[in-house]
């Protein structure tokens, strides 16, 4: 980790809603994937995490949500230490998480999937269902359909909808555009922006770095489990080093 970036992180993150300090984490003992990552998000921000394959983008997101064990470092939400907390307890504390794969319950209907989203407080269902179906109108008409019969893009909508049912203050999205056609990818990015506009803080991990940097407020470029660059979406998208190393020809064109 570059000390400058870490100092900058400490200076700026005092009032952050969610914050990760100097995370070291991995799946197998002795093989860390994160080598001291920092991240913070202020209330209402849209944060992007990009980087090459194997940089630890998804691992960072999972570490925030307690799905990967954090060996050292700390994750806090509004100052409360939530490091390694169980996922369902994090949902109680208003964090939502949408995994990249297998992100719907296939044998449940769309409606039941959304019901599971507010499992901890079913009284929220009616209001939340209205709110979510205004973001994703297609879901309302097909509420009785089994989620297992949906296409990848439709599943992504259900998954994001479900994560929003508890009215979370932060939502973590793991590569929502992966495996989708370019048209559907655009659709997903528009939806993510829409969700953020409703006041929800969003942290998004993306393979499609160029597209991601267009919509985010701030971005983190990860390399080998460390923060390589941070900055606003626009500044990163225009940074020659970032373009050279991570955006490649796609961004130049």
């Amino acid at each position, binding site marked *: 980790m570059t000390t400058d970036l870490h100092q900058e992180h400490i200076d700026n993150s005092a009032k952050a809603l969610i914050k990760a300090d100097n995370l070291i984490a991995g799946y197998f003992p002795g093989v860390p994937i994160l080598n001291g990552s920092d991240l913070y998000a202020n209330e209402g921000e849209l944060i992007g995490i990009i980087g090459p394959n194997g940089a630890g983008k998804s691992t960072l997101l999972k570490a925030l949500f307690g*799905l990967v064990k954090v060996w050292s470092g700390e994750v806090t939400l509004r100052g409360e230490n939530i490091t390694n907390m169980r996922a369902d307890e994090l949902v109680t504390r208003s964090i939502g998480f949408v*995994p990249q794969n297998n*992100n719907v319950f296939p044998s449940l209907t769309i409606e*039941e999937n959304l019901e599971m989203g507010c*499992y901890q407080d079913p009284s929220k269902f009616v209001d939340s269902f209205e709110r979510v179906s205004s973001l994703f109108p297609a879901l309302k008409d097909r509420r009785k359909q089994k989620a*297992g019969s949906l296409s990848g893009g439709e599943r992504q909508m259900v998954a994001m909808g479900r994560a929003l049912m*508890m009215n979370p203050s932060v939502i973590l999205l793991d590569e929502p555009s992966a495996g989708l056609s370019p048209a559907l990818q655009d659709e997903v990015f528009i939806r993510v922006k829409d969700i953020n506009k409703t006041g929800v803080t969003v942290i998004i991990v993306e393979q499609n770095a160029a597209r991601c940097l267009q919509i985010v407020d701030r971005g983190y470029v990860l390399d080998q489990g460390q923060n390589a660059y941070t900055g606003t979406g626009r500044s990163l998208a225009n940074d020659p080093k970032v373009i050279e190393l991570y955006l490649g020809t796609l961004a130049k064109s």
Partner: protein
Amino acid sequence: MIRVFQIRRILKSVLLSTIFAIYIGSGASALDGPGISGKISDPDGKPLAGVAITLANNENTIQGLTDATGAFELAAPSAGKYTVSIDVATLPAGLTIAEPGPEREITFVQGPKVLIFKTQVGTSADQVAVKRDSKIPQLVVDGLLFGLTIALGAMGLNLIFGTTGLTNFSHGELLTYGAFTAWTLNYLVGLNMLIAVPLSLVISAFLWGWAQNRYLWKPLRRRGTGLMAMMIVSIGLALTLRYSALAIFGGSPRNYNQYAAQAGLDIFGVAITPKALIMAIIAIITLAIVLFWLKNSKIGKATRAVRDNPDLASATGINVEKVISYVWTLGGFLAALAGITVGINQDVSWRMGQILLLIMFASVTLGGLGTIYGALVGAITIGVLIQLSTLVLPTELKTVSALFVMIAILLFRPQGILGKRERVG
């Protein structure tokens, strides 16, 4: 013309053949060692006096006649294998003994047995003609009753598999221990069955279901034990529990001290005991409640969500361990009900769970692993199939037919009858 003639004969036999003969339970019998007792009456229920009965083995032959009330009682000099036969010539003209005929093999382990001989109008030639056809309704009904019992056990097995991925080889012992819990309360403590059964269902749900998960499976899951290792643990647990039951309760089959022997009812030519009928109704109501609960309740939906994807369920805010805990409690309850049903209809033995386990596995596989209705549909199908297989296969092979179906299903429709292939992407 031949066919009309045959149908008339069948109809005549089916209509005229009623039950009878029968019964009388423990209190009325003076026998306290090996021996047989029972009662013989004509199809209208009138007792038949003076019917000759013989109880014989290689060494001894004991003969007796029914008294004025149609009752008979023969003491055997020792335990072992005997042949019981009724001298058909001493029956009133035109009457025969219904299936399985006037001659029976019987083995005494300890204590007396009650034998049921039904009489029916007709000659033995008639009997042979209608034998196969009139058997089918009876076999189907027997199969349905058996299938419902299996469904209770298979439902729990399927739910536990679905939510935890555990192939639980010790599920059969949940049936055994449920049945023995009721036997302890009923026979040893002396509680009436109407109290002992509900009480043992609750005890079994918490002790054999909830506590087993809490103190064995949950710690194993927390340690990240693999599914294969857990399956081996379940095999070890099954053996431990099975032989513990043998050590504690002994090897001979036990009966509850109520409802042990009961006169059969004749419903459209199908014999069914009131106790079997009542247990079947209880099973149907229980299964309906469980299915409704899975479909509509909050925990039921969460159970299906956990079955679909435990990690996602957790990330969605569901406390997965809590759901699994509910499932084990329910599994213990359902298995105990299945075990007690078998105990009431047949007897309670240390090996009962072992025998039923493979049939439950076959049912779950047939219906579709992890699907809600799978266990029910599979169990009913297997139950009927096992009974019907006795038409063409020797009785000894009837369980084999269930396992054969399981193998065939795995070859040709691995997702089971109700299982669906899922859309990918």
